[in-house]
């Protein structure tokens, strides 16, 4: 009962003939599958690209670095009550000082206020009628450049004097430097930020990480940490600490060390949960993994619905096809086609139909992703395996929803089928 070579050829040839013979109908039928696959491929490409960017940004943090924050995506995603998080004690410069003194594993601590934190601290910078887009305003300590990936291009960085005097000076990111001064020297110019006049003392180099929205990563302005409170008020006292381990110290050791120091400072008992977040590169990547996985699951659920709808469309049109070709089925049976021959013929047809939808979906989806990349320079990734899975999965949908019509065709009585008008 094995299928000969000729039979496979015949089955594929008939599937092709049938689909090509009803081009318009075929296209309309697979629209649901096209939409489902388009969605999967486009969003997958965007998430994959986003993932690469995020991961490289996280990795730019370095394996020897820990971030200490009042709360972060870590505690938010772990499901803690948001009001509890808000009510945690603020982190301060004094915490940084204590860690410098007491944590033996820590080489350097840099402090920053704002910077992607909560609440957001943003504003535009103005210079002689020119203005920048919304900038991330970050208050930093004098040793901020010691950790992280930012480098000074012109001028100088903040000094202890700037800190003590809470000077109205700032260091511009690459994007606002270009926006306000073009190719001119920005050093010493007076810039207005949130209603205050600041003197530009330095400009940062363009960051070399590929970023989520191109120049977004350079869309920032640094002010002395002490000055930051002038801009955002005493309530903006919460700091984020970036700590680098001493040469050769494992990150886990530093993590235990810093955690111990902070628990003592906050007077926590051994059975109490930490009221701060301590993030390493690995833990941030882990969190991102969880988020992107959750995103993927939602995507899979949504596209499953689209594929379901598409599959039902395939089933409906296959039932029509079986009815239309009742006589052909009768003839084939009279000439010696077994049930399985007819079954495979129609399964091949519905699988090809759905696979064609999958291929169109892959093409559309990757075009959309590529279009997004061209329009916004949002990074996209078009992995070949996602195409394989998309086409393979849509074929499976075709086969699944083709089983009922194909079975109906296979079970037709040859006498009735031959008599069918």
């Amino acid at each position, binding site marked *: 009962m094995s299928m000969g070579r*000729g039979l496979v050829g015949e089955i594929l040839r008939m599937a092709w003939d049938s689909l090509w013979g009803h081009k318009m109908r075929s296209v309309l039928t697979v629209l649901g599958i096209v939409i489902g696959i388009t969605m999967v491929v486009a969003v997958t490409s965007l998430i994959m690209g986003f993932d690469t960017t995020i991961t490289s940004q996280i990795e730019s943090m370095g394996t020897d670095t820990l971030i200490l924050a009042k709360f972060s995506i870590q505690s938010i995603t772990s499901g803690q009550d948001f009001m509890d998080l808000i009510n945690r004690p603020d982190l301060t410069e004094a915490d940084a000082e204590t860690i410098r003194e007491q944590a033996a594993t820590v080489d350097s601590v840099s402090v920053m206020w704002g910077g992607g934190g909560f609440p957001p601290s943003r504003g535009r910078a103005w210079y002689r009628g020119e203005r920048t887009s919304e900038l991330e305003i970050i208050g930093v300590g004098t040793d901020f450049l010691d950790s992280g990936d930012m480098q000074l291009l012109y001028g100088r960085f903040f000094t202890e004097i700037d800190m003590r005097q809470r000077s109205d000076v700032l260091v511009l990111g690459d994007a606002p430097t270009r926006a306000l001064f073009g190719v001119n020297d920005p050093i010493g110019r007076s810039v207005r930020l949130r209603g205050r006049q600041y003197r530009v003392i330095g400009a940062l180099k363009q960051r070399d990480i590929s970023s989520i929205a191109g120049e977004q990563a350079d869309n920032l302005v640094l002010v002395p940490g002490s000055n930051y409170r002038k801009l955002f008020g005493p309530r903006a006292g919460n700091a984020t600490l970036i700590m680098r381990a001493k040469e050769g110290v494992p990150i886990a050791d530093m993590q235990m060390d810093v955690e111990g120091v902070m628990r003592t400072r906050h007077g926590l008992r051994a059975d109490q949960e930490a009221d701060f977040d301590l993030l390493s590169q690995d833990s941030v990547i882990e969190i991102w993994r969880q988020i992107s996985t959750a995103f993927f699951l939602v995507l899979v659920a949504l596209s499953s619905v689209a594929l379901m709808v598409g599959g039902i469309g395939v089933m409906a049109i296959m039932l029509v096809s079986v009815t239309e070709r009742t006589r052909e089925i009768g003839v084939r049976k009279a000439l010696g086609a077994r049930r399985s021959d007819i079954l495979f013929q129609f399964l091949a047809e519905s699988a090809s139909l759905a696979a064609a939808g999958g291929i169109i979906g892959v093409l559309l989806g990757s075009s959309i992703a590529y279009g997004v990349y061209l329009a916004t320079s949002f990074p996209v990734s078009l992995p070949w395996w996602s195409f394989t899975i998309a086409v393979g999965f849509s074929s499976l949908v075709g086969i699944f929803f083709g089983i009922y019509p194909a079975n109906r065709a296979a079970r037709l009585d040859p006498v009735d089928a031959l008599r069918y008008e």
Partner: protein
Amino acid sequence: MSEVEAGNDPVATEVVEQPPSPQPDVPAATGNMIEARGLKKIYRMAKVEVRALDGVDLDVMPNEFLAIMGPSGSGKSTLMNLLGCLDTPTEGTYKLNGTEVSGLDDDELAAVRNREIGFVFQTFNLLARATSLHNVELPLIYSGVGGRNRHQRAMAALEKVGLADRADHRPNELSGGERQRVAVARALVNDPAIVLADEPTGTLDSKTSHEIMQLLVGLHENGQTIILVTHEDDISGYAHRGVKVLDGLIVSDERQTPRFGKD
């Protein structure tokens, strides 16, 4: 050849015991090609019982050219479906070319049809989107003949019906007579025990009908066993034996001199 008069009793079934005089160049075959005993086909609807076929015995020897005749509703189509292994009898036995087929399942019947029976239909029943060659290849495809062999056999069958030059044409590019020739080629391609032609000229004009019948006569002369199902006396006149069916029974079975010979 003399005509054998069947009994007048419509209920009696006439069994031909003797083989018809075979063509001189055909070796005498042993055994019956068809041996049917007490074939019944009964359709049970809600409360009515329709006896489409009510006990038919039929023997066909190799190289017979048999015409089954009868008005519509007589049961001749049912008989044809049973003889063609398209259907199974409610009662009775049917031995085709030495194989008992009445107890076979769908797929086994399909294999028997593929091997033993070449169908020629009234409406040709060619696949519209397939070329002549592909249509003729179909039975070979289902019997697993592949590649060059299949192509050669299909071309040989097309040559037999004189349409080798139409191999690449689709049915809509062919005349009715040519279509039926392609169908005959398809029926012959697997060297079947029986060619079963169901009203093969039903949609053709008389000239083309004659041509098609001449083709069948030629096949018969080359040793092919042919069963012709028709309600037209003209057409049944090409056969060497006439079987009349009425009300589900064979009412006459007589040898006849073909009225139309080979041109």
